[in-house]
């Protein structure tokens, strides 16, 4: 700590409490700042690289702030199928978020209100669903999806990708509905609401933070989906953008500038999303009491 007295600890504890708290906070803020720099630097470098000229990229040392900013790389990226892949990514994400949120909300509600034995066991079975390597779920999916004709199609990938989002979401909504008192719905029933009305008008609004948390969780997974689309999407007109990044790696060289530009296009718009929905990310998990 900040002292050159003979016994620093003694000196430290002789300081008034408020002053000690202040120094503690400075130290903790410093650690937090270092953490934030470690988080932000890769993102910054991705954007910076995408704005460098091809020559600037490979002339060392790179300045930390690019001097020759150009949009050249973006222009060459836009000449590829990147916008098509972008649209596919949006479609996939929307589908997975919709399917997961609806199924998990309804299912979570049903499980929370259902009086069945072995509930706890069932909760664990859902979590055990994650113990099977996802890459190996994709093999049977590939074979079966081909047989029923939904291979190489985005709706097929939406259904398949839900395998990675639904178990956790279902479990989360189940936990969430347990924090919504059933007595509210019972009161609604007493004054003549139907069962569906009680669910729709009473329980659902109370569960909104949980639903948003599930939507964000499944969005984050679908937006960055890689493994399942790799296996199930065989033609590059159906690719999502994460697969499209590979088109910039060639036999002998890797077009780093283009990859960073396409990545920037994929990542930057989602930041606004995180900024505005952050309280729901935290609130959704808080209510789950895990």
């Amino acid at each position, binding site marked *: 700590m900040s002292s050159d007295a003979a016994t620093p600890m003694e000196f430290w504890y002789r300081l008034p409490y408020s002053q000690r708290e202040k120094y503690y906070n400075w130290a903790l803020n410093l650690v937090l700042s270092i953490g934030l720099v470690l988080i932000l630097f890769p993102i910054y470098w991705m954007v910076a690289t995408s704005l460098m000229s091809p020559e600037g990229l490979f002339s060392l040392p790179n300045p930390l702030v690019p001097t020759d900013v150009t949009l050249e790389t973006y222009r060459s990226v836009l000449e590829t199928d990147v916008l098509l892949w972008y649209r596919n990514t949006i479609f996939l994400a929307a589908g997975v978020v919709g399917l997961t949120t609806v199924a998990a909300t309804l299912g979570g509600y049903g499980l929370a209100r259902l009086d069945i034995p072995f509930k706890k066991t069932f909760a*664990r079975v859902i979590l055990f669903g994650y113990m099977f390597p*996802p890459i190996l779920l994709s093999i*049977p999916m590939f074979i079966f999806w081909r047989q029923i004709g939904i291979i190489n199609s985005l709706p097929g990938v939406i259904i398949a990708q839900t395998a990675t989002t639904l178990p956790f979401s279902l479990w989360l909504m189940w936990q969430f509905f347990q924090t919504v008192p059933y007595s509210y719905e019972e009161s609604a029933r007493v004054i003549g609401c139907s*069962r569906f009305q009680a669910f729709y008008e009473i329980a659902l609004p109370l569960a909104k933070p949980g639903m948003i948390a599930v939507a964000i969780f499944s969005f984050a997974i679908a937006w960055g989906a890689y493994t399942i689309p790799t296996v199930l999407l065989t033609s590059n007109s159906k690719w999502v953008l994460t697969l499209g990044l590979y088109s910039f790696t060639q036999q002998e060289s890797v077009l780093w500038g283009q990859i960073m530009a396409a990545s920037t296009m994929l990542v930057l718009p989602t930041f606004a999303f995180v900024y505005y929905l952050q309280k729901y990310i935290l609130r959704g998990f808080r209510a789950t009491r895990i």
Partner: protein
Amino acid sequence: MLSKRWVFVALTVVPALAVFGFVNMFPMLWALAASFFEVGAFQPSWTWAGIENFETVLANSDFWASIRRSVIFAAGSVVLQVTTGTALAILLDRKFSFKRVIRAIALVPYIVPTAVLSFVALWMGNARYGIINQLLVEVGLISEFIAWYGTTDLAMLSVIVTSSWKFTIFVTIIVLARLQSIPASIYEAATVSGASRWDRFKDITLPNLKGVLFIVVLLRGVWMFNKFDIIFILTNGGPINTTTTASIYAYRTAFSDFNLGEAAAVSTLLFVLLVGAAIVYFYFFEPSQEVRVE
């Protein structure tokens, strides 16, 4: 009355269970069954093989080596993610200015796709042009550029650190959510009665986090053990197989050797191993109130 309630509840549960059955249970059961057959990749013919696939896999030292690497990868990742993730949550659960912006920054890795992270990491750690090498040489920590993902001694460590950049935030979110539900009055009472910062952390914060840390360690452990995409893009199992974890090994068995039966046997063994480990984990460490059921 009771039966009507049953009907409604059943209707709400059906969609989730149908999807869960179709995309989780069905492929899993398919793979469990396939592990007892010889399955051709190109023709859907199954030939009964009994436990032959398992014998082949279990006798293969490459399989055991890949399991060992998965354990190293998962254990290293869990330790790194849980410690830094909990620390970050504690740092964020304080009063400071620009809270909204700072929390949003901390949440950034949550939304960055694994493929993007992998390419950015490969670029930053590039042996000829990487900014990490440039900066480290400049401050004098290393004397020459290092191939972070291409050196046998460093590849595993680099992959663990890279994947933790993204997945630590998962720990932070859950721990932070729990921290926010601890009433401030408890801390105030402890402070008034003379508890030091360390005492408050040890006697209030940690016991309250026990339940979430229990489930976080389990989830992160399982997810990292089965992790595929980030390792696949960063190193593809190399150099010289030093990062060939069990899921990479299974992928190769299926898609390079086209031996689906054996790949299914590998995944069955991984599954049995993880379920066994999870049961032991629940048995020995379960806090009294882990899954709250009404």
